[in-house]
């Protein structure tokens, strides 16, 4: 196998793996956070404004973990530096 097929194969395979594994953790985390927030709102409806605000900030932070994986996936597929290095003519 030449360099191009190895790099292409590894990039696509790793991209799929990255987004697959990388979305499991945040999914569990967000589910847990929302469940806790819902029970907190059920117990203290008066505090729902504060709870919702903190929940949104927290959710965005948890979700950013998944977003990092997504960014890595996009780089692997669309802007892979190794791929560019191999496909460009030598010396370029």
């Amino acid at each position, binding site marked *: 196998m030449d360099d191009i097929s190895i790099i292409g194969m590894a990039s696509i395979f790793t991209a799929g793996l990255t987004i697959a594994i990388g979305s499991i953790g945040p999914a569990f985390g967000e589910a847990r956070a929302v469940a806790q927030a819902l029970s907190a709102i059920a117990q203290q409806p008066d505090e729902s404004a*504060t709870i919702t*605000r*903190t929940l*949104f*900030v927290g959710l*965005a*932070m948890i*979700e*950013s973990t998944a*977003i*990092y994986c*997504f*960014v890595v996936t*996009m780089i692997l597929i*669309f*802007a892979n530096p190794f791929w560019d290095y191999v496909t460009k003519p030598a010396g370029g």
Partner: protein
Amino acid sequence: MTISPDDVVFWQWGMISLNATIVYTWVVMALLTLISWLVTHRLSSGTDISRWQNLLEVLVTGIGDQIREVSHTEPGKYLPFVGTLFLFIALANLLNVIPGYLAPTGSLSTTTALAICVFVAVPIYGIASQGPLNYLKHYIKPTVLMLPFNIIGEISRTIALAVRLYGNIMSGTVIVAILLSLTPYFFPIVMQLLGLLTGMIQAYIFAILAMVYIASATTAHDGGEPPENSQETQ
């Protein structure tokens, strides 16, 4: 498929190129400045106010209230910086409803610039409120051993701030582009709506996080009560 507005070049002259990021950043800046100038150059303090003045008052007092709730201090000197961050990001994401517009926040350069603004503003506010020595002292708290970790934390949270905003906006654009080729007409619109919601939430998060970082540099170490949202991130 273009994943960054940096790649869309409108005009090029030698080394200088004018890409979509710069142009649409200027559009957003011009809109914000123009609307604010038009509204504020004839303010009235009576009961009979124009609806635009009403809108601006709601925005400014709303941002002020949020800052007060997060930092437990008066929003006065933080309001211009945090409010500008929020308004810029919110308008940049909101204009996505206009066809042909590419959100400048979907480019890593814009979000990095915004995150660096926060990175610089935190020590400025910290030093202004408690003096250079007291500010520097909080890098060696609780012990001197924590010095490298505090510095790493400062840098990594700046990167996280930039990549979070960039990733959220960029993912919205890419998902719409992919869906357009698979199931046109309906689902892209739904995802576009979701993108609008995400954009507003991200603008809010960015401003709140900037405020939390500033608050933790200004208030948390004078023995007072730490602000309520001062959880350290990444």
